[in-house]
């Protein structure tokens, strides 16, 4: 008897505690009247942290009814925090959104706001950039900056090895690799430990091999059954067989320390790296070299003979925000402000990504970034990273299969099957 009483005391106490925890504020903000937007973004460090704060302050000045509670959250934490928040009763009003398959998964929470209507007046200039944040033709967020992947290279090492111009075809790339090897240099650094840098290679070989239709269908149906993907895998195999990477590349991190792939490029220990436009910032943080910017150049992934893909198609993605339904109107207005010319110029000047508004390209910090932005703006097809475009579980399974392939396990068919398997729910 006594223990029953004890248990009931304990249960009552637990219940009280849980009730107290669950009864958060459930206020509903109507379209009019003052509203405070909770904003989760991933810029926890300066200078971007203050820049976001400044942009929110400016918006508040012109829209006194809208105030902000800003919570910068460390990038990796979004993976765990967003599902929990969307499952709860008080999700943030604006939160970091990378689009594609994870956006699609988040939709089943029913908390994301459809901003198709609210964004119609200002979304035009974004063009195909905005597509990654659409699901079935509806807009569930917008990017505020885009990213594009290409080859970063050391001009000094290229001339040391006698490579006169950046390669524009796969044959030229192979020739450059051979020359760099002959000069005792590491031709290409890759951060194989992190897996996603490996995936860039398969993605690009697929983009060069497959028609835009085949790529779109693959993402739509979550399958890589078109033979062009197997061919892409074979091309990748042939490329890996030239052994273009540093020794032990499957254990190399992409961005941590001087021994990382970005660090190797920054310190002149490798000549090339296939990476996103963010790489100069990462490299600068790993190097004391103040002249680094002038030593680094960029060229797009070379064309591959025999493919049906567009040689000018670009692999990329972007950083964006989504709104939840509580204060969708105010949130959408704010997103419109973020992608407008004024803020876009301000963001472009920070060099943290490519602007989504064409008018802001001129404000980019370096010539190289302008080159990338112009190249990306003209591309006939901007292919979202396959792992982001597909449902999250499938994308990760694909990246794992590619990383295993880099480590010598499996073949082109295992990569193709990994997607089919994961889409069918097999582990």
């Amino acid at each position, binding site marked *: 008897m006594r223990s029953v009483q004890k248990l009931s005391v304990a249960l009552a106490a637990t219940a009280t505690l849980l009730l107290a925890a669950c009864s958060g504020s459930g206020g509903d903000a109507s379209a009019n009247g003052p509203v405070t937007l909770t904003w989760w973004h991933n810029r926890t460090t300066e200078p971007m942290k203050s820049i976001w704060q400044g942009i929110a302050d400016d918006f508040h000045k012109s829209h006194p009814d809208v105030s902000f509670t800003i919570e910068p959250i460390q990038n990796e934490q979004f993976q765990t925090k967003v599902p929990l928040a969307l499952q709860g009763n008080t999700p943030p009003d604006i939160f970091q959104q990378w689009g594609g398959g994870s956006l699609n998964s988040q939709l089943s929470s029913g908390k994301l706001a459809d901003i198709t209507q609210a964004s119609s007046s200002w979304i035009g200039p974004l063009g195909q950039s905005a597509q990654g944040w659409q699901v079935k033709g509806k807009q569930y967020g917008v990017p505020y900056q885009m990213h594009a992947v290409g080859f970063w290279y050391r001009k000094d090492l290229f001339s040391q090895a006698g490579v006169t111009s950046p390669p524009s075809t796969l044959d030229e790339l192979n020739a450059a690799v051979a020359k760099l090897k002959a000069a005792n240099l590491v031709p290409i650094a890759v951060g194989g430990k992190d*897996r996603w840098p490996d995936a860039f290679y398969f993605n690009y070989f697929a983009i060069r091999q497959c028609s835009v239709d085949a790529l779109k269908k693959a993402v739509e149906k979550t399958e890589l059954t078109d033979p062009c993907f197997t061919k892409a895998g074979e091309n990748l195999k042939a490329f890996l067989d030239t052994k273009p990477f540093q020794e032990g590349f*499957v*254990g190399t991190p992409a961005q*941590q320390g001087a021994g990382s792939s970005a660090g190797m490029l920054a310190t002149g220990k490798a000549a090339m790296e296939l990476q996103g436009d963010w790489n100069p910032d990462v490299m600068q943080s790993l190097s004391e070299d103040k002249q680094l910017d002038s030593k680094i150049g960029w060229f797009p992934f070379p064309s591959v003979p025999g493919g049906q893909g567009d040689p000018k198609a670009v692999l990329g993605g972007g950083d964006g925000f989504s709104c939840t339904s509580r204060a969708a109107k105010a949130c959408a207005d704010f997103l419109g402000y973020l992608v407008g010319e004024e803020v876009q110029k301000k963001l472009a000047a920070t060099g943290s990504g490519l602007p989504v508004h064409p008018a802001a390209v001129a404000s980019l910090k370096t010539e190289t970034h302008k080159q990338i932005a112009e190249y990306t703006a003209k591309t006939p097809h901007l292919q979202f990273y396959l792992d982001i475009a597909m449902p999250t579980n499938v994308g990760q399974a694909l990246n794992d299969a590619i990383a295993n392939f880099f*480590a010598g396990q499996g073949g082109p068919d295992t990569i193709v099957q990994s997607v089919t398997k994961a889409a069918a729910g097999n582990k």
Partner: protein
Amino acid sequence: MMSTATRSRPLTAPSPHAPAAGGARRRSRTRTRLELTFLLAPALVLFVGFVLVPIAVAAYYSLYSWNGFGPLTDFVGLDNYVDALSGDVFQSAIGHNLIIVALTIIVQLPLSIGLALLLNRKLRGRTFLRMVVFAPYVLSEAVTAVIWLLILQPGGFVDEVLRGVGLGWFVRQWLADPKIVLYTLFVVITWKYIGFGVILLLAGLQGVPAELREAAALDGAGPWQATRHVVLPLLGPTIRVWIFLAVIGSLQLFDLVWIMTLGGPANASTTMVTYLTDHGFKRYEFGFGSAVAVILFIICFTFALLYQRFALRRDTDGALTRAVN
């Protein structure tokens, strides 16, 4: 334990004046109840809220195919468990954990005992040496992992030292070679946790009476015999507790591996918990991840129960396992 204590009190306290004693008994019983409520409730609430409820919820989630968003609608029964246990990667993850468990007991235990015996002797700079051995344990796993990631990188500190002392032929791709990455990680784990074992065993050694060793010496036992037949048996309880903690720790290995290799290359260093994190949080397969968590829980819990029952019982007899009458 508590209920045993309260139940036995009336028996051991004879009551010459029945009515008065009855009143006192009632008062003391109320008081005991109040004490129990106040002292146990906070811990009990925390334990129920943060241990039992999450386990129950995970077990519930594990029966669904669920990506973490929206309601649980796709009931799949035990499919998640079947998928996990029949998957190559998870099987190899369990294997990796078992290898770490075995290595821990085979390598770390003798090493800890040896160091503890050494550091228990009177020698110059003993306090300093003890501190040195214990220092890595104070570091967080994340810091340890980052430090070792840097010194193990190709051409890094370890490689250069090996080349410097003429052992260049021994240099390997410590974290990139699927065949040796697990053992590299084990070395780092040993470096980090050896101090804990040593401190624990040193404390145990303080409980070995000097008289016993003297008596053994008088009876003609050499240092080795005295250690083997007097000191080690008396260290038994400490060693058994250490093994318990080490096995549970090895089964739950995560931070070091996640930071140093992410379970790679090609799943060569995947552990049960990195597998769980990979699927639960990176792939948004929360139902499946919960199933893996439940499997891990069952493995740890079964081990804990069996170990308590068969190995720790003699050490804890009367305190945990059986009521004292």
